[in-house]
């Protein structure tokens, strides 16, 4: 795992040196200064060529853009180039055990002590914690304020004393996520992004970025899965004919293709709009709903097509594609939960896009 990661880090470093790590990022911080659409095209080409992913996914995809938007000049110079070069890997700490969908209900605290904040609390559903150098954290700095008002977004060095990372085992079997424990962790106040007690606006920016852009490289990954499933239907025979000639299977594949294509086009429209507006809007929620729910329907379709072979897991004889489909089916269950549940996304559309009263 560690070895594979170092591999990806080296790969990102090469991209960085060629000026490809941050296609749409400003040149002065190591980017290429091109448009967002050009960046998307580059990402698509990467995926199409089956190039490996970058190492610093969260840094480049979410935290970097947030720093570009909310950071001071000094913060930008300090952090952005090392994000692109993968010299510093980033993770983020938003969710807590008691604040999942209700992100603003978090309880981890930071109190000012001289020119440092002292952080205590627990975060959950953290990715890359085991390897990260820095963490983008949202903590409560004013416990007496209404819940959205007392939060601060702060950048924490993961090598600070008092941080513990414990892996969470998922239902799909592996441990992609971890819990983070903060015990008296001291961080310079200069590492606050945006203003103290105004962290909710900064965090929202990150969340909306997540919704609006997560889909970009996913599309091609999904398309590869779809193509592979089509290929499998040509190989699997039922009643003496390849499944690809079965009318019911063909309807299912065409439906999956339709949805995937519509998702791709939604994504393109969103990028197009983002290029104009700069800041993603609440419409990003339809992308989040679409990719997660499409993927669940697709994996179910795949299971129906592959039959009992599809449920064989990694390491099993006869497992289709090394158990990838069984893993995919189980992993996909989390899609409508992670990065904001489908229910939260529908609340956002209802309230912020359609102007209906808050329902929660």
């Amino acid at each position: 795992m560690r070895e594979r990661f170092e591999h990806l880090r080296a790969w990102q470093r090469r991209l960085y040196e060629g000026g490809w790590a941050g296609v749409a990022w400003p040149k002065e911080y190591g980017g290429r200064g091109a448009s967002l659409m050009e960046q998307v095209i580059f990402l698509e080409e990467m995926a199409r060529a089956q190039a490996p992913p970058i190492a610093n996914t969260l840094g480049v995809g979410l935290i970097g853009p947030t720093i570009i938007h909310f950071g001071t000049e000094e913060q930008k110079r300090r952090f952005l180039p090392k994000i692109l070069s993968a010299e510093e890997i980033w993770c983020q700490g938003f969710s807590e055990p008691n604040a999942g969908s209700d992100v603003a209900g978090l309880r981890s605290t930071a109190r000012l002590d001289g020119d440092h904040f002292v952080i205590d609390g627990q975060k959950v559903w953290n990715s890359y914690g085991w390897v990260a150098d820095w963490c983008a954290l949202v903590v409560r700095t004013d416990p007496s304020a209404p819940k959205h008002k007392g939060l601060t977004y702060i950048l924490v060095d993961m090598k600070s004393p008092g941080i513990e990372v414990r892996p969470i085992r998922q239902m799909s079997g592996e441990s992609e996520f971890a819990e983070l424990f903060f015990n008296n962790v001291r961080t310079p106040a200069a590492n606050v992004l945006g203003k103290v007690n105004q962290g909710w606006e900064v965090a929202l920016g990150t969340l909306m970025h997540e919704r609006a852009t997560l889909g970009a490289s996913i599309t091609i990954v999904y398309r590869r899965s779809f193509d592979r499933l089509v290929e499998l239907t040509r190989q699997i025979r039922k009643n003496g004919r390849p499944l690809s000639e079965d009318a019911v299977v063909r309807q299912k594949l065409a439906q999956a293709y339709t949805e995937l294509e519509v998702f791709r086009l939604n994504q393109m429209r969103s990028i197009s709009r983002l290029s104009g507006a700069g800041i993603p809007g609440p419409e990003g929620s339809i992308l989040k709903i679409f990719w997660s729910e499409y993927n669940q329907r697709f994996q179910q379709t795949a299971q129906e097509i592959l039959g009992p072979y599809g449920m064989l897991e990694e390491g099993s004889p006869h497992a289709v594609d090394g158990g990838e489909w069984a893993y995919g089916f189980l992993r996909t269950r989390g899609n409508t939960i992670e990065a904001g549940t489908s229910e939260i996304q529908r609340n956002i559309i209802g309230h912020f896009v359609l102007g209906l009263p808050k329902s929660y």
Partner: protein
Amino acid sequence: MRFELNETQLLLQKSAREFLANECPMAEVRRLMETETAHDAGLWKKMADQGWTGMICDEEDGGMGLGMVEMAAVFEQMGRALLPGPFLSSVALAGPLVAAAGSEAKRRYLTPMIEGKACATAALIEDSAEWDPAGWRTRAEADGNGYKLHGRKMFVTDACASSFVVVAARLSGEMALFAVSKDSAGSGICRLKGMDRTRPVYEMKFEGTPAELLMKGAAAENALSHALAVATVALAAEMTGGMSKVLELTVAYAKTRKQFDQVIGKFQAVQHMCADMFLWTESSRSAVYYAAYALDKRLPEAATAVSVAKVYAGEAYREVGNRGIQVHGGMGFTWENDVHLYYRRAKASENAFGETGDHRERIARQVVG
């Protein structure tokens, strides 16, 4: 490419929206749908004055020479207004067929259409209701300088409002397209009572009906497949416009209707239905404009993109309609409420130019083989 309308397109869309809001409000839709043809000559003239009747015709023929994306932008507004009458049949289906004919035929048939003096439709599918031309059996035989047609066409839209009808028929085994004037066809036209009263459908019988040959063989086949693609995009654009109107009506209702001492839009079950309606509407829009773009640029995936738009919009419009009626509660179930008029259009549209299952099979032919 940009995935948003440019300024010209937005302007066109805006002017179409305003024109239709003024000239064809719902009261007018309800009046027209109770008439024999759902067609209003006065309204038609005003649309011709806007240049819309020649919207996608070449400028040298007197048209506006707009592309498919611009066409979709106008049709979206027409769907939103639930414009009754033969606009789609004439401009997006019969028009492209006639435009593919020789210059003499174009002068005789297309020019009056562009000028707003004639409107037309096409008679294609038959008893089997299949959109694959291989299943069409109407035949033509030479008769002196002209031809005579024998056969029966089904579900011909707007036949009664049209001055002539483009008919697909076999001529010595080859596919061919003919023009039949309303005068010759008249006695064989019989109205069917479809769910969508704003777009009447007809059965047409040909028993030695005189007809003029427009084109035949590969030219006829190509014209057919192109015209059907154009008409399907126009229809899917209309469907998207219809969805956005149903969404708008529904959200407005959810904001004002109170039950249990609060507006119903505050109930999560209702609010999430509205969110899904938004998702379907926006997603249809993405699919439709890409299909229009792909058709305009004649991209290799154009046919598939058109089928994707049709499949997605078909299910989406129906589901948006279902949710729209549900949120309106008892009110949504009354004749006075406008949602069911859109719902009826949705149903008819789902069947037009190939049902959902048929388009899925077309997609499968491309992506599965």
